[in-house]
């Protein structure tokens, strides 16, 4: 670096050549200086461009690695949960079928019928699990389309509560408060069913049979608010985000059967309807899920 007479900085290429006489004694030196500022600036620009390119490529590589890691984790969670969730109904089917085959003459017609019903129920449970896995796949591939229909929301939710109660086979105290303005709403009934039944099924599964589940449906200016609150086992604070990922379950939920897909499907359904979901929870006290779906 050197300075011009006017004080301006410039990059200097400096060469100093010694000059000798015939006896090889140094007589003087010749110096050549070249202003290389512009070349230096060009080099600097190229270096910065290359640095940015390397940064960008590193970022892309890290992102690809993160996605790869997520996929490996997802695959391992899928294998672990799906295999466990399939093993139990498969066992029931296997034992029931074996009983019928090996002890046919020792069983009454009613007992055989009950076993066959159980086989059907378990096969249907496994089909639902498979459907859930396929729904997640379809949703990830953007293959689910929204189809709006006109719905009597109160009637629709009442029927979903009854349906979920029947499937759960347990009489639960469910307090339902509906305070929306009269009239039908436009919504995708399949997605809406998915959201609501998943919320209610979870509330039933993760709370004691004696506790009350509160369902509150109200409308705001622009959206419908669905709140489902239970007095169940709750969710750890550091898991309130991860529980919405596929095959991810709360650390305190391992004793309760489940695929870890319900909340992930629910979130995808809410997003397809341009809605939002939030959850508040306290361990041992319960969880409250709030879903907001824009009115159409």
């Amino acid at each position, binding site marked *: 670096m050197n300075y011009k007479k006017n004080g301006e900085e410039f990059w200097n290429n400096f060469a100093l050549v010694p000059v000798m006489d015939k006896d090889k004694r140094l007589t003087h030196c010749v110096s050549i200086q070249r202003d290389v500022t512009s070349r230096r600036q060009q080099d600097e620009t190229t270096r910065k461009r290359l640095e940015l390119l390397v940064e960008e490529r590193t970022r892309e590589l890290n992102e690809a690695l993160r996605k790869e890691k997520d996929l490996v984790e997802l695959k391992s969670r899928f294998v672990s949960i799906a*295999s*466990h969730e399939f*093993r*139990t109904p*498969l*066992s*029931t*089917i*296997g*034992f*029931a079928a*074996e*009983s019928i085959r*090996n*002890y046919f003459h*020792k069983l009454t017609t009613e007992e055989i019928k009950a*076993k066959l019903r*159980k086989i059907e*129920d*378990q096969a249907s449970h496994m089909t639902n699990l498979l459907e859930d896995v396929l729904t997640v796949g379809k949703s990830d591939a953007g293959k689910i389309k929204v189809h709006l229909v006109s719905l009597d929301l109160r009637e629709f939710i009442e029927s979903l509560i009854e349906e979920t109660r029947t499937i759960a086979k347990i009489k639960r105290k469910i307090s339902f408060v509906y305070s929306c303005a009269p009239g039908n709403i436009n919504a995708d009934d399949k997605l809406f069913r998915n959201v609501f039944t998943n919320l209610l099924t979870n509330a039933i599964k993760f709370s004691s049979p004696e506790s009350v589940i509160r369902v509150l449906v109200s409308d705001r200016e622009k959206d419908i608010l669905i709140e489902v609150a239970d007095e169940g086992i709750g969710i750890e604070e550091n898991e309130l985000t991860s529980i919405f990922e596929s095959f991810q379950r709360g650390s305190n939920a*391992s*004793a*309760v*059967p489940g695929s870890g897909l319900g909340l992930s499907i629910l979130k995808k359904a809410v997003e397809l309807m341009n809605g939002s979901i939030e959850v508040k929870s306290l361990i041992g006290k319960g969880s409250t899920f709030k879903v907001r779906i824009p009115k159409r």
Partner: protein
Amino acid sequence: MKRVLLVEDTIELAEEIADIFRLEGYHVTTASNGTDALDRLREFNPDIIVTDLLMPGMDGFKLVEKIRTLSSTIPIVILSAKTAESDISLGKALGANAFVRKPCKGTDLVSIVAKLIQNNGIAKT
């Protein structure tokens, strides 16, 4: 009649396993978790315990550990959908005599149970 204490929280499955044991001539009682099983243990006085691992409340691992503090000889079979090598090692380290992966054949389960009861009987005599 040999007595089996079956610990399984999935009701439908518990009913089917219990049926197979009954049809094979065993006297079966069921419990839905570890605490429930410990309550039944004294009054039922089983010849063998067949337990699941993942259950609400006290799980199968804790149950095996507790039972071993009460009896070092009663045979325990773990029957579980948790099938990682680490689960099998832990179950056996805690004192289970056999680990059976779900799903399995009823005849295989009955034969394992029969053999363990017989071996325990021989050991006692």
